[in-house]
């Protein structure tokens, strides 16, 4: 009898968790809807021009940490140099690459060695050399000993000379007005310490001269599922969390920060796998502890296009890293959990990320196992199981389609109806294996978090060539 009770309670727990999780997501969608509509209505074509014309903007340093990026680094620096922003510098930090990243850069941009007396605001591994470019006065290349991505970013912070900085991945593409759009938010509201833009999936789109000329959805189900995750996560999740001032993640692929705030908080920590998330949590914590106004916002229209893993191995490795980073950040700042002193960050953000983002995959994986166990015990009521599963899928698809609708009505990135149809089909297909595998993988991260140490993680990349090409969809190797 006790055994039966356990089974019943197990089911009840899963059911309640499922309802809570999806209600949270549904309310996010609703919040995001109102917020995005409001944002969209405020947009005015003259606004960006105002930022350019007046002196409301602040100059910005763009930090590009690079580790073995010889394939993509030149085209990326080139596209960054054409960024539509009045005053900026680009700092490429070569983090002890074992390939000839620096030589490739040296040839392409006419780099020459310069002596540099750098103020050490945050400790980082020693510099081997600092280069400047003959052709581009705003380009700086720092060659330093290997120390990981956070160390590279810290080094970049020391070299950076402008009050704002933007961290981007060496393999991402920024829309030319992306920085301008985020910087406008900084100019309007001085309480902002960090802001993130939307990160979208580059795979499948047509790229020419380092620019996305036509956004298209990827064709393979596994890439589609990821593309949908990005749209949903950014457009509904982050918008809503930012609205509640509880945004705890700004993608390392594209985020803009106030340099003084980050330096005061101590820069990036080197002992975590997800330095970007940990930093944001710390910024929240610091501003609450010192009672300084500090806001972390999400701006939905500046786009950073990123290449996602196209083979399962890199995908699983990436997700493992994210999950471990999340767990580590939450554990490091466990003090904030449900602590009213930290305001919405402690009362909303921490519980949300802990309950749903961290434990979510565990419960999901447990649920799948539970069904199998019930079935093995012959106690599975098939009709109920099927119905419930259908219900779960449909609920999830409602949320995904909701995000797609927001995306389409407000920003209209896909010009072909076909791409949209493919995305909708993808939201069904994500249930045929993709979600399950990720749920198990992320549950496994609870174990690996104790074992693995941080290291540079690579996504197999395609060089961004000048001629129009469809970004890679085939397997990674």
């Amino acid at each position, binding site marked *: 009898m006790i055994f039966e009770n356990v089974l019943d309670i197990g089911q009840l727990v899963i059911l309640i968790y499922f309802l809570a999780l999806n209600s949270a997501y549904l309310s996010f969608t609703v919040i995001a809807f109102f917020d995005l509509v409001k944002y969209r209505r405020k947009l005015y074509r003259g606004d960006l021009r105002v930022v350019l014309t007046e002196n409301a903007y602040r100059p910005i340093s763009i930090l590009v940490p690079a580790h073995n990026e010889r394939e993509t680094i030149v085209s990326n620096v080139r596209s960054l140099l*054409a960024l539509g922003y009045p005053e900026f510098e680009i700092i490429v930090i070569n983090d002890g690459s074992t390939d000839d990243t620096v030589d490739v850069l040296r040839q392409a941009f006419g780099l020459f060695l310069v002596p540099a007396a750098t103020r050490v605001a945050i400790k980082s591994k020693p510099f081997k050399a600092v280069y400047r470019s003959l052709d*581009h006065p705003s380009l700086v290349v720092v060659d330093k000993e290997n120390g990981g991505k956070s160390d590279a970013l810290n080094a970049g912070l020391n070299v950076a000379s402008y009050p704002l900085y933007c961290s981007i991945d060496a393999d991402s593409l920024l829309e030319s007005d992306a920085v301008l759009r985020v910087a406008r938010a900084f100019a309007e509201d001085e309480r902002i310490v960090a802001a993130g833009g939307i990160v979208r999936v580059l795979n499948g789109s047509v790229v020419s001269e380092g620019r996305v000329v036509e956004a298209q959805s990827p064709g393979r189900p596994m890439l589609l599922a990821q593309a949908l995750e990005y749209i949903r996560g950014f457009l509904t999740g982050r918008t809503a969390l930012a609205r509640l001032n509880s945004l705890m993640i700004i993608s390392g692929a594209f985020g803009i920060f106030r340099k003084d705030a980050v330096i005061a908080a101590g820069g990036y920590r080197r002992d975590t796998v997800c330095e970007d998330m940990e930093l944001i949590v710390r910024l929240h914590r610091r501003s609450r502890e010192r009672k300084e106004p500090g806001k972390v916002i999400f701006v939905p229209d500046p786009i950073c296009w990123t290449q996602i893993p196209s083979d399962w191995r890199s995908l699983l490795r990436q997700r493992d890293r994210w999950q471990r980073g999340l767990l580590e950040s939450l554990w490091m700042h466990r003090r904030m959990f449900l602590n009213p002193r930290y305001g919405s960050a402690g009362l909303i953000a921490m519980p949300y990320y802990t309950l749903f983002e961290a434990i979510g995959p565990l419960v999901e994986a447990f649920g799948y196992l539970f069904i199998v166990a019930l079935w093995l015990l012959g106690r599975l009521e098939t009709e109920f199981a099927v119905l419930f599963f259908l219900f779960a899928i449909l609920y999830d698809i409602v949320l995904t389609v909701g995000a797609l609708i927001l995306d389409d009505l407000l920003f209209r990135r896909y010009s072909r109806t076909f791409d949209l149809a493919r995305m909708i089909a993808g939201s069904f297909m994500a249930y045929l294996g993709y979600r399950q595998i990720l749920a198990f993988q992320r549950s496994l991260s609870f174990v690996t978090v104790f074992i693995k140490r941080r290291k540079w993680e690579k996504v197999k990349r395609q060089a961004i060539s000048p001629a129009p090409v469809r970004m890679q969809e085939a397997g990674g190797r």
Partner: protein
Amino acid sequence: MKNGNGSQKNCIVIAEDDDLTGELIEAVAARPGRQVLRANDGEAALRLIREHQPQLVVLDLFIPIRGGMEVLRLARKEGDPKRPRVLVLSAQGQLGTEEEARRSGADDFLAKPFIPGELAARIDRLLGKEAVQ
């Protein structure tokens, strides 16, 4: 039709990504016997400059792919004797931009919004100066 130092006489390249502004500048610059070419981004502008070796480039500073400043520097660097004259047209009203543009080799600077007559006069002057030399 080429003049003494190799640049094509009466050829103007306009680098401007906004369709309306581009059309306005083109209409201002157009004269019988003048060739006016338009580019929507920096890369295309450089290509046109290389191919046609124009006498004058009217350059917006905020154009995609390669920014106006870069086009300016490259246009002034490539093959010094036949380099084109450059008129920078920018939405940035600050004088800092004008100083920077002139340092990078711009021959003239005009802030938007502009008076069509003034733009026409400056274009004529820049083309005329070349003819006198």
